[in-house]
């Protein structure tokens, strides 16, 4: 076994070879390598990201030794970017690591095209003004962007990408695709060939529940004018019919059938999430449409035609009590239909590509196959520009959060994080940044916060005195544990964005290190 493969074993079991390959192709730019940025990057370097470029214009000070693991005493006075870069290089020599001794703000102002070369930019510890500028630059250049900030016992993480489509969303719990409420002919035929009334007790208790339910549902339909159980009474009756067929107490297959009977009653067709995706305007494809939307267009056609209102069959079945023979044969039936559906979709994809003037073979078979398998779980994430969120946050959401006990500290911090940036723009330092004059800083921060709330249209809503005091107490400190937490979250989201697996968070994550009631705010 090759060494790199073994080293990454524990993570390959999560995102597989393809995910790893995507990571290894990615180039990441980090802005500011204090502990927040350094910890974010550390997790990505350990994971094997392709290349990193660290941008930071500061020199290592004594205080940095107290919160940043990537610098040590020998780094004092040197470029922080250089020191962090060399430490990170040690962590994984497969990663190409570079640094640029430059203040990110300067780069943002004077050399915006610098950012176009990267897959993703991790922007840490930026103030509002720089965030807005960078956001525009990256959005224009189609470079993924994630903001991360630590401030005392609070902080935030926010992705900013125009659109991120996920095929392999790999949700924790997702209903299997058994079509017990809508069996196709081959499945029906397979079930028909098995006799539920077999005499041998071993055979009786090793008939898979899928077969039991398909047959019992069919029987019901025949005696109920063509429809499946729908009322509570009918559903109960259906379960009783199942129970009546048990010849012994220990027939696990029948118990499984009863537990799974809800799958027979479930409504047919696609979920509302999927419905939203296929009616999205991007599904009207043109020559510059992404592969994802081309496949969605094909999916839309399939659902309306061959699919009969259903998405392509996923193809796998869960484990269930069964004889090996029945189980294997049942698996084959599902795999065959899944394959058949895939071939139809593939044909449609190639036709659509031709129609929009693209090479019909430009989307690989494997991609289309994965798309089909994951069709029911597709996710499209879109993020507003920071500027829009800041200028037009969803007022009802904001008001709801500010008055909800569990949310109030996190939302309070969200407002205060913006308030301290305004404060800094006015007074050239953060409130409480220096000892002495605390009372004045508190009062100034309060005024700033109130005016911000007014600008947002939340007149009358206030933040507690305690929280404002606390924000001044923080004095813009970058605490290692908070930075490590924020960095962990940010790095995890970066991995999802780059591997295009799992669903990235939506909204703005606000960390609440006081009682850990952090919140994900959807301010759209």
């Amino acid at each position: 076994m090759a060494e790199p493969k073994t080293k990454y074993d524990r993570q390959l079991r999560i995102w597989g070879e393809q995910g790893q390959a995507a990571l290894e192709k990615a180039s990441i730019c980090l802005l500011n390598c204090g502990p927040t940025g350094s910890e974010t990057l550390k997790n990505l370097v350990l994971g094997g990201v392709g290349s990193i470029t660290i941008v930071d214009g500061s020199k290592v000070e004594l205080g940095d030794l107290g919160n940043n693991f990537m610098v040590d005493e020998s780094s004092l006075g040197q470029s922080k970017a250089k020191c962090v870069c060399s430490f990170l290089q040690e962590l994984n020599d497969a990663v190409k690591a570079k640094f640029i001794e430059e203040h990110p703000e300067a780069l943002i102002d004077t050399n915006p095209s610098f950012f176009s070369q990267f897959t993703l930019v991790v922007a840490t510890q930026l103030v509002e003004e720089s965030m807005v500028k960078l956001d525009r630059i990256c959005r224009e250049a189609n470079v993924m962007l994630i903001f991360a900030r630590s401030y005392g016992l609070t902080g935030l993480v926010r992705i900013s990408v125009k659109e991120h489509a996920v095929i392999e969303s790999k949700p924790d719990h997702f209903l299997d695709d058994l079509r017990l409420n809508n069996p196709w002919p081959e499945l029906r035929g397979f079930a028909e060939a098995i006799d539920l009334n077999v005499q041998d007790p071993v055979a009786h208790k090793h008939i898979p529940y899928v077969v039991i339910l398909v047959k019992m549902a069919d029987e019901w339909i025949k005696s109920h004018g063509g429809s499946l159980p729908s009322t509570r009474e009918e559903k109960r009756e259906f379960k009783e019919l199942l129970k009546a067929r048990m010849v012994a107490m220990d027939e696990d297959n029948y118990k499984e059938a009863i537990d799974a009977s809800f799958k027979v009653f479930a409504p047919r067709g696609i979920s509302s999430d999927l419905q939203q995706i296929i009616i999205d305007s991007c599904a009207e494809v043109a020559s510059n449409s992404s592969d994802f939307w081309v496949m969605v267009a094909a999916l839309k056609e399939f659902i309306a035609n061959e699919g009969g209102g259903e998405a392509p069959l996923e193809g796998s079945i869960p484990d269930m009590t069964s004889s090996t023979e029945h189980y294997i044969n049942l698996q084959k039936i599902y795999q065959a239909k899944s394959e058949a559906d895939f071939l139809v979709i593939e044909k449609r994809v190639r036709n659509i590509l031709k129609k929009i003037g693209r090479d019909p073979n430009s989307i690989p078979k494997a991609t289309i196959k994965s798309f089909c398998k994951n069709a029911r779980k597709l996710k499209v994430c879109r993020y507003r520009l920071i500027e829009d969120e800041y200028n037009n946050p969803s007022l009802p959401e904001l008001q709801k959060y500010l008055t909800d006990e569990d949310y109030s500290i996190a939302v309070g911090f969200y407002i205060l994080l913006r308030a301290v940036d305004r404060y800094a723009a006015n007074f050239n330092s953060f409130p409480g940044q220096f000892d002495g004059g605390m009372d004045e800083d508190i009062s100034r921060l309060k005024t700033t916060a109130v005016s911000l709330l007014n600008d947002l249209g939340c007149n009358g809503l206030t933040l507690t005195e305690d929280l404002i005091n606390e924000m001044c107490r923080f004095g813009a400190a970058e605490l290692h544990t908070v930075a490590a937490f924020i960095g962990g979250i940010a790095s995890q989201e970066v991995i999802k964005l780059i591997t295009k697996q799992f669903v990235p968070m939506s909204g703005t994550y606000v960390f609440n290190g006081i009682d850990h009631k952090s919140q994900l705010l959807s301010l759209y």
Partner: protein
Amino acid sequence: MADAAPPSKSRDLDKLLLRPGNLVGPSFEPGVQLRDDLQEYAKVLVVGAGGLGCELLKDLALSGFKNLEVIDMDRIEVTNLNRQFLFRLEDVGKPKAEVAAKRVMERVSGVNIVPHFCRIEDKDIEFYSDFNIIALGLDSIEARSYINAVACSFLEYDSDDNPREETMKPMVDGGTEGFKGHARVIVPGVTPCFECTIWLFPPQVKFPLCTLAETPRNAAHCIEYAHLIKWDEGHSGKAFDPDNPDHMKWVYDEAVKRAELFGIPGVTYSLTQGVVKNIIPAIASTNAIISAACALETLKIASGCSKTLSNYLTYNGVEGLHTKVTEFVKDKDCLVCGPGVLVELDATVTLQKFIDMLEEHPKLLMSKASITYRGKNLYMQAPPVLEEMTRSNLSLPLYDLMDKVPKDILHATGTINKDNKKSSGLRKLRVNFKGIDGVTDMDMAGGA
């Protein structure tokens, strides 16, 4: 105008430790003394030097703690390197605790970390009593249960069944699996202990042996057949060693054969390892998140610089991002951290008399009690073979049987007769012997 403070390593931490606040712990006394005391007096033990342990050591070293110790019985493996960032390729084979301690001390000057390359069970109780806070970066229920029992054993209660603050040994416990994890604060006597909430951990899924033998359906069944059933057939007597590559290869080959026999797809070497070793997928980011939360709580508990997590944080990053704080309540009848029932008696009372006393004790009403003390079964009502073996203890003074300590904990199990209803019960008892020299305060009951 504001004064710039002279440059200090503690530049950022000072904001939390030196300044007063309103959203802080109950006994918070901000100031230079606090910061210095944290450095000089606070001793934290990190249990585990793996994915969580490495992060914990770094986080604690950069949170003002200067006296740390770390215990781990494992050696570094290649598969650790994607997240246990204190280790390099050339460290493979060396003890984790030793390398981790060394690396952190190299980078963070002033911190002292003592490594212990051994099992947690190999240490005396005195070892654990030395620490103010124990931070856990473990990956097994068994290890957590052990440390929990140790930490809770220091807890003492007063005669009003209130826990005594100076005997509380707080723990912070973290766990991760893929994109999920948890961080919790355990203050024995205040929050639930690990045992109070053991139902939070679902038991491991086990396949029926007859499915493995007769009706395998998937690759995991074939692998477990080879591992649990076929191995013994071919290697009678020799224990299967999951870390022995030859053993693993043997299981893999057998699993492949079986899969071919039944027409089952999907047996790979990687899956074989995963099933047999119960490998939990792991990444750096989740470990970083959970450890950071644990270290932050450790800082708060030690210094009071902010309110603490109350008391269980769950984290899930699979779909978006979800964190939730749940305040679990401790089980007052918990055998490990609960106060138990106070029983006071003379040093002359025999075991038989003691057992009779339990029947009348208003808080117990326990008849036919069997008694166990520190792993020694003093008297067993059943089965007959044990009853015979322990019968002779009945006539001995309980004080002697308890090694002549003035107070200690024992456990009794028997039939509880309450409100005319009989049920079986297991109770923790705080036994206090009256009139023994050395027990200055009659109100002090309990023991370790």
